[in-house]
């Protein structure tokens, strides 16, 4: 019986999945950061 113990994220696609999750979270944060009130006059 073949068993897998892939715990190294560099050998699997784990790192890429982590990056994708980080991307989605950071994208939401970026949108919130860019949402500025319109009352401030441009400098």
């Amino acid at each position, binding site marked *: 019986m073949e068993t897998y113990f892939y715990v190294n994220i*560099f050998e699997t696609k784990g*790192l*890429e999945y982590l*990056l*994708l999750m980080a*991307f989605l979270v*950071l*994208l939401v944060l*970026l*949108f919130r*950061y*860019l949402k*500025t009130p319109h009352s*401030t*006059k*441009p*400098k």
Partner: protein
Amino acid sequence: MQPKPKLSREFVRFFKFMISEIKPKPPYFTPFNVITVPIILLGLGILVIRFSKGLGAVTNLSQEFPWGFWIGFDVITGVALAGGAYVITFIVYVMRVEKYHPVANVTVLNGFLAYVFYAGALILDLGRPWNIINPIIGNSFGFNSVMFLVAWHFLMYMAAEFIEFSPVVAEWLGWKKIKKWLSTITLGAVIFGITLSTLHQSGLGALFLMAKAKLHPLWYSEFIPILFFTSSIFAGLTMVIMEGTLSHRVLKDHIDPDHHASHNEIIIGLAKFATVAIFVYYFFKLLTFLHNKQWTMLGDFWGFWYILEVVGFVLIPGCLLAFGVKQRNIIIIRVGSIMAIAGVILNRLNVSIIAFKWNAPVKYYPSWQEIVVTLMIISIEIWVFRWVVSRMPVMKKSKAR
């Protein structure tokens, strides 16, 4: 018999109008004219030699390096920087965000001229320029080739951009009925143009898919078409920011006062879009970096050069643009835009020239003639742009609107 005299009257009016418009307007001895006229004359002289004696007489191109500065900068970089036209027309005509309407015409004009001059510069680079007709007529051409797609797309996109801009030309000529009809087909041309752009911006990247052995692994990726497409979005937007800034200083007499007032708000809005596009592009770069396990290649000169491009000219301008939007600071946005444009130029030159055949014993460096001809093309484009903007209602509200 009524139509005939009317037509001839219209023809005479049109002829007189064109003669009066073609005449150059003072002042003649501006710093821009004084710098660009010698460049244009020198460039034209070099082109005479190029077409009479061949590419080898004026360029450093060879069998080893058949693609040089004219392809790498004029075509591959120039087309990316012209991406603002399809992004702005998508925002204005498809998404119906009217806030950006004041910059739509001028951006389409810029995109059209960029394609005419930069994609047109392909003719200079062809050993047998008369064969440029072959992909268009399908003569001895691989229909599955990326180059076939790019050639057709350039041609059709130029036509689509001209249709998008044509209502302004019709208004300038006083053709009210034709203008009304042209305005009705603009949306179709816009959608067609956007479809073409998504394909040929990525198609320019796909040209390098076959060059896996020649391109440095840090720049080669199976996703290079997607990287080219996403980077063309923020390249175009940051170019619109910079062009808008320059136009507002140099051509302020030709701009509506309303447009003047809303200019900063438009810049901040465009910077917002550009920030998100840079963010997405940066993560694509990071993803390909991790996917190909490229961290082992960062120790040498190429690694440092790659970090300079990705961090110095992608991540930092992205952060500057985000910060500029948050602070509503136009100066920071402009600095971020210049850096982002520099980043796209660096990326395209890395892919097409600098990191291309990176391990070859003999390197390619552009000759001074290649650089002068490129400067000549840019100068002529700006001349034509200035001529159009100072005569046609490009930055002014349409009377019919």
